[in-house]
Structure formats: structure tokens, C-alpha cells
């Protein structure tokens, strides 16, 4: 299991350029910075259509594939070719959005996981197609108002729940699956450091709040990410050797109401709807706690 790494122990060297064209408060760019710092000089990065090309200004070889659906396949090609070229020291890493992971890229993700390809797939999860203007994805949470699930007389935002992607990936029985959050960098770094030397398919889904799409003040990205973890909306856990382990257990789950109402996309929620979400979060958290330390498979 991973251990949090104190920030003070990190090398000062950055592999990401300070300049990029991300929106203010972009948590995706925080993900990229941390990944670059930890995997940096041993990395070849795969990029597909997402906000990544805007913020992923990492000074290591990158292959920008215009093939939105192709992350799993393209990383497979790299991993296998590097093996043939006797360069298995190179880490194949993808920093891929939630659409490219759980929607259009899902077939390739599942297939690469099933083949246990040697890659580290980091999904920065901003819960919608943010680079195209905030359209609903399967990673969007219920009731979120997006540009394709607007709130109106006949609509309360997204009608369906968020796809439980990390668990789906873990059920492929891959060497390592984890969730992380930009508000818990020490936990995230620990997980990256743990995943880095493992051979085979590794997957980390990182909660990355998007001020532009979620409609909140850019200065609060980390705070909202933190509140999502504290409230149980985004639990931190990892699955290794088929065993699930919760990484962080808040003493008491923070009520979801303030977390939701702090974001423009949920501001329309009625008390009943907030209660429904709260009930769902409690149930999910209980189930997770039941599985804590137990085999998932």
C-alpha cells in the first residue's frame, strides 16, 4: 500500500513549464505538475483530446494523438515498442480527461487493463467535457447542470449517477487502482510513487475541480476538492493485490449541502435533492468502509 510523501521531501526540479494556457484555478494543471514532478525524467506521455494540451506543458516527450478514443491503444503501442527496443525503463504515462477515460476511451481502457499493458493511466476528473465547454460525461455527478444537461422546466440537470470508474477498473484485477485528489497532494504523490515501479496496468483517478465548468471562484479549487473528500463525495482509496484500502477516513463526513451549493452547477438543488445526494453518499461510504481491508475480488 502507498504511503503519503511529505511535500518537503520532493525535489525542487519541475518538469512542467510555468506558463500554460489553462483557465485560472485549473486543478487539472495541478495534476500535471505533480505527475511531472514524480515521474518526470523517465516519462513518455500520451495525450489525447482534453484540456491536457492546454495545461500539460511538460518538458518530456509527448505524443499528442488526435485520436480521442485511442489513449489505451496508443499507450499499448508505446509500451510494447519500448519493450522491443529494450527500453522498458521508460514509463508510459497518460494524463487523460474523464471523457477520454470513461466514455469514448472506455473500450480502450478496459482492453488495456484486461491485457495488463505496462502503463500508468492518470485520469484527471473534472466531471465533464470541459475543453469543449462543459458537456455532460458519464463522470458527471447527478443533478449537475452542464451545457448539455441544463436545468429547465423539464430538467433538473444530469439525471444519472456518476459512473463508478475506479471500481470498474479495479475489477479488471489490475496491479494497482487508486483515487486521489489535488487537495491531498501528499496522498497523491505517495500513490504515484507506489505505482511508478509496478509493471503492468496502473490507474489513478484524480478529482480535479474545474472553476469554469463547475462555476465557482477560481481561488477555491483546492478547497472544493478538499470538501469533496471530507464529505464523502470523492472517497480516497486504493486497490492493490485485489484488496481495497481506504486512504483517508474523515472523523465525520461533512454535510454535502454546503459543498454542493458552493458550486454553480448544483446551486439549483432543492432540499429534497440535497437529501437524496446525502443519503446516496452515506450508503456508498458505508459500503466502502465494509470493504476496507477486504478483498474486492
Amino acid at each position: 500500500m502507498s504511503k503519503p510523501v511529505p511535500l518537503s521531501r520532493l525535489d525542487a526540479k519541475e518538469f512542467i513549464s510555468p506558463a500554460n494556457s489553462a483557465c485560472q484555478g485549473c486543478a487539472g494543471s495541478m495534476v500535471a505538475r505533480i505527475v511531472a514532478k514524480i515521474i518526470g525524467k523517465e516519462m513518455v506521455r500520451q495525450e489525447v483530446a482534453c484540456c491536457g494540451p492546454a495545461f500539460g506543458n511538460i518538458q518530456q516527450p509527448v505524443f499528442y494523438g488526435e485520436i480521442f478514443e485511442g489513449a489505451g491503444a496508443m499507450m499499448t503501442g508505446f509500451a510494447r515498442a519500448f519493450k522491443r527496443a529494450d527500453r522498458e525503463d521508460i514509463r508510459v504515462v497518460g494524463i487523460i480527461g474523464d471523457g477520454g477515460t470513461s466514455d469514448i476511451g472506455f473500450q480502450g481502457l478496459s482492453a488495456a487493463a484486461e491485457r495488463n499493458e505496462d502503463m500508468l493511466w492518470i485520469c484527471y476528473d473534472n466531471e465533464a467535457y470541459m475543453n469543449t465547454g462543459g458537456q455532460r460525461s458519464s463522470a458527471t455527478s447527478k443533478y449537475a447542470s452542464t451545457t448539455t444537461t441544463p436545468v429547465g422546466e423539464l430538467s433538473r440537470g444530469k439525471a444519472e449517477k456518476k459512473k463508478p470508474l475506479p471500481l470498474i477498473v479495479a475489477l479488471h484485477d489490475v496491479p494497482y487502482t487508486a483515487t486521489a485528489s489535488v487537495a491531498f497532494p501528499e496522498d497523491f504523490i505517495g500513490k504515484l510513487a507506489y505505482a511508478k515501479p509496478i509493471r503492468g496496468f496502473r490507474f489513478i483517478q484524480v478529482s480535479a475541480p474545474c472553476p469554469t465548468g463547475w462555476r465557482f471562484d477560481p481561488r477555491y479549487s483546492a478547497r472544493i476538492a478538499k470538501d469533496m473528500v471530507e464529505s464523502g463525495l470523492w472517497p480516497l482509496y486504493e486497490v492493490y493485490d485485489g484488496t481495497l484500502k481506504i486512504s483517508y477516513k474523515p472523523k465525520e463526513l461533512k454535510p454535502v449541502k454546503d459543498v454542493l451549493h458552493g458550486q454553480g452547477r448544483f446551486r439549483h438543488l432543492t432540499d429534497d435533492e440535497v437529501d437524496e445526494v446525502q443519503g446516496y453518499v452515506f450508503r456508498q461510504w458505508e459500503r466502502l468502509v465494509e470493504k476496507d481491508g477486504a478483498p474486492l475480488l
Partner: protein
Amino acid sequence: MAKKFEVMVGNKAVAYAAKLARVKFVSAYPITPQTTIVQYLSDMCATGEMDAEYVTMEGELSCQASAITASTTVRSFTATSGPGLLYMHHPLHMTSWARLPLVMAVVHRSTKGMQPDQMDTMSQRDTGWLMLECQNSQELLDTGIMSFKIAEDPRVMLPTIFMGDGYILSYTSEPVEIPDQELVDEFLGPYRRPYPMFPEEAAESLKLMGAMWSNQHGPQHIWKMQQEAAMNAKIVIKEVNTEFQKKFGRSYGNGLVEEYKCENVDAVLVGMGTIASTAKTAIDRLQKEGKKVGLVAIKSFKPFPDEEFQRIAGYTKAMGVIDRNVSTGTKGGITFTEIRHALYDLDERPVTLNFHAGMRGQEVTVDGLKRMAEKTLKAARGEKVAPIVEWVGGN
């Protein structure tokens, strides 16, 4: 050196091409009638006869996408048919603009049903790939090897499809000479990594990617460069064909077109793939009857041999073009319109007729081809013929 022959189906000949080219990455997915190519390759990898990463992907799109990244570093190969090729359409564009010398075999399968026609590759006409057609299994093996040399030539650097008809070639056995491995090694040489993807090459790599993505060249630059490369390929294909002849004793016309019994003719039939090989029998019989008609087989569809057709126009009064494809909404098949386009700049043009034939595996017989040739000869004599574009059989 003793020559090595084996009776094999077309798909095995294709697998031999990949093996002899010492391909290091194979992405595979089953689809009839291509399937046995990847089966033969999996056998070769399982027995150690071939030393490559063999990956069964979850679909053809992923076959193409994985071969794209693999070919940045090692010689790569994939194969498909009909709907599988259509499913690959999106990444095909990327392979060519990224200028990766990936080689792919396409066993023609119609877009409807499993029998062959050229609708699969014709639907990829403008993806920037070179496309070389084959008439028999030996030609598949030889063209496969030549494809790597053409694609990897620094003047070209474009992905290349070599293709042949499903069933008629894929599952039909005939004797094929297997080239000597050492000679193939000499002929192709080692793969030159086209991309600096290793971490220690970061500066070079970022510069390259930066150039690909910056606007320093203007938005149309990619296609302009591809076009230049494809035009260079006309020279390179001829050179490679000649070099292949010197090394292995076989060649295919001049690499771009094969002119069969075209001396002293009044008319020519023009065809591609197995239709052209059947047409040779028709031409033999007609010439025996004293009819002055020859055959032009299109070997290279992309780049299209405009100059060759302009030259051929100098010795023939009529061309009867057979198209195993249709471009709905345009009068005439695709090679017919390409040829007419090539001839437009000439002061004196031969009469051109078109025959849609062989769609979805519709049989194209020697007698049917004789009748097409007779019609073309009639036009060559200056007689009025109609219609200009005709559907032959199975309508």
C-alpha cells in the same frame, strides 16, 4: 541458392511479407477474410519463427492507434478488411499526417456482405496513405516487402496499404516463392526510428512536436508536405520495383502500372487487382483472334499514375476502364474519373468507357471481359458506343 517454393493461400503470403520484413509489432483483430493473416502471424510468433510483439487488440481502431505509436520506434504491421478498415478511418488520417511509415495489408471486403470489392479502400482514398494493388499471392508477398521500403524512404515517409481481393486471393492456394531472408534484410535494412520518443531525446522530441503543432507553417502545411511526399513516391515506387527485380528477379510492370501485351494495340482495358489478372486471359484470347487490344493493370492507386496514362494515351485510341467500385453521385467509377482527369491536359485524348463490375463479389468472367474489350475496340474504330458508363452483370 535454391529457390524456395510453397503452395499457399494469399493470406499466408501476406504473413510471410510481415515476417520477412522483421516486423517487431503486430496489432491484430479478426475479421473475415483477413483473419488468417493474423492467425499465421500468431503461429509464427508462438513457435519463435518470428520475433515480434503480437497484440490482439479489442477492435480495428485500436489496431491502427497502437500501430501508430509503436511505429514511432519499431517496424510495425497490421491487417484488416472491409468494415474493419472503415472502423479505422479516424486514426488513418493521423498515421499519414504524422508521417509514420506503417504498412498495412487490406484484404478487400465489400462494405455490404463479405465478398470483395474496392469500396473499403476507396473509402480511405483521401486519408493520405499510399495504396498498392495486387493480382496474385506472389505479388502480395513481394508488394508487402516493397511497401516497407517505399514507406520508409526518406523522400516518402507515408503509411502504405498493400491490398488484394478477399477470397479470390486470400483463401486460394497457389505456388509462391519465398524470398531469402538475408536478401530481404539487405533489401530493407534496419528500421530507422522516425520519432525521437526516448526521454533523453526530450529537447529534440519537443521541438518536433512543437513544429507539428505550431502555426509557423500555416494550417495547410501538413497536406502540402504529404502531397509532395506522395508525388515523390511515384519516383520511389519505380526505383524500388527495379531494385526488387535486380535482387529477386520479379517486378510488377514499372511499379505504377503493368502494361500487358500493349504493343501495337488500338485499345486497352484498364483494371485493378484480380480483375486485371483475369483480363489477361481475355486479352490472350482476343489477340489470338487478331483483335488489337491490350491490358493496363493499375498497380499503384495512390499515388495515381497520371503520367503513365498520359503516355499510354499516346498509343491507344480507346480505354475501357473497369471499376470494382462506385462513387455515388459521380458519373463513372473512381479510377475512370482519375484517368479522365489525367487525360484532360492532352491535346488528343482517347475515348474512355467505364464498366462497373465485380461489386460485392459479383463474378467477372473472361467472356464478360472479352465483351468489354470488344466494346472498347468498337469505340477505338470511331463507332458510336453507348452508354459511356455501364453496369456489368448482377444488377
